[in-house]
């Protein structure tokens, strides 16, 4: 069941309503037994996605992505709360407790990472609008973030990410897809790519060149 829940969170088309995170923050916490392993896997996944998402939001000056970061940040707080409860119930002996303390420490760290991501997107706040210094800095990074539009001529249209092997062929990791006025965050292997999608991806310059040629329909296959 929880796997379904994870699917609901990632890899589906959605619109993060403005200030959805606030609603999430003030909903009551309900006790829902979830295995520690699932909680921790989700926390780790979020902790990796959220950094890229936060930097992308800042780089592309995108408030919608920033809203999603805030939402994931709040979600992370909840997961952290759940995992504490579950861990405490699982402890029977001193040895259990010692091992579980390690799990909680990793969970706590994942949560700090999401807080840091939240701080990054707060740089977008309107009051202290800064010049283009952030994009200027981020464009120099080792692995960069890119935006590519999918042309209807591309062979990628209506294919699953899995089939295209985007990441293993180009080294470009897809962080998000913008489709119409919705978003797909952390696209999964069975997510389709459609014409006119905007892909947000992370990788090297070379990978970006290959992938954009393919997505613009100038290359027939990814190789």
């Amino acid at each position, binding site marked *: 069941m929880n796997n379904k829940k994870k699917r609901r969170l990632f890899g589906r088309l959605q619109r993060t309503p403005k200030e959805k995170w606030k609603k999430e923050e003030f909903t009551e916490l309900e006790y829902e037994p979830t295995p520690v392993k699932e909680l921790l896997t989700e926390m780790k996944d979020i902790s990796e996605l959220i950094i890229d998402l936060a930097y992308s939001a800042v780089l592309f000056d995108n408030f919608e992505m920033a809203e999603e970061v805030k939402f994931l940040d709040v979600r992370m707080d909840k997961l952290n709360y759940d995992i504490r409860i579950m861990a405490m119930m699982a402890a029977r002996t001193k040895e259990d407790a010692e091992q579980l303390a390690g799990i909680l420490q990793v969970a706590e760290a994942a949560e700090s990472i999401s807080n840091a991501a939240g701080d990054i997107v707060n740089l977008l706040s309107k009051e202290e609008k800064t010049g283009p210094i952030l994009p200027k800095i981020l464009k120099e990074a080792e692995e960069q973030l890119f935006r590519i539009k999918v042309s209807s001529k591309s062979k990628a249209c209506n294919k699953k990410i899995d089939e295209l092997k985007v990441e293993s062929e180009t080294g470009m990791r897809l962080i998000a897809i913008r489709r119409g006025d919705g978003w797909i965050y952390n696209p999964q292997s069975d997510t389709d790519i459609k014409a006119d999608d905007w892909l947000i991806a992370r990788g090297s310059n070379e990978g970006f060149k*290959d992938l954009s040629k393919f997505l613009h329909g100038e290359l027939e296959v990814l190789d």
Partner: protein
Amino acid sequence: MKEKTVEDIVLEIKDKSELMVDLSYSSLIYDNKVIAKEVYDLEDIVDNLYKTLQRRAVENVKNKKLSVNDALTVLRLAEAGEQIADAAQEIADVELRDVELHPILKMSVRESDVVFTRVKVEPNSVLCGKTLGDIKLGSETGMYVRAMRHGERWLYGPDKKTCIDKGDIIFARGPEDGEKHLIDLATGKTSEI
């Protein structure tokens, strides 16, 4: 040597902190204390970079090279990177403790969207004697090399000029389907990159 600019330092903090997150998670997967210790060392470096940056940013504002708003933005971005570095250190700390890791910990980290791989480069592998820039491992297989072990020496966050030798152990991160390709390359099963 040219003095590092404020922008250079922020970027270094960003890249290092992301490397640390990768290394700390992989130290858990492989139950590897050497990698975990490296995260500790990197955290020291990031701390120092952050201090240098603070000084540099303030100086630049004073010399009117940087606006107050830009300086604040840069410092806040770096602060977030520093927090991420701290979090990575917390993760590495779990590995360094004298308590056996909970099996769930390894399973969860292993089972996520991104995988870490450790592979030894065999003498008959095409990777031998090539630099990372030559073979473009990242853009061809999706696997990014995050650390390497060369004899007794370790190399963290290698760059394009780093050369792979036989017997090296590569730690890389990437998608599941890239993992097999990398292993085949390193073990000499395939020479097609």
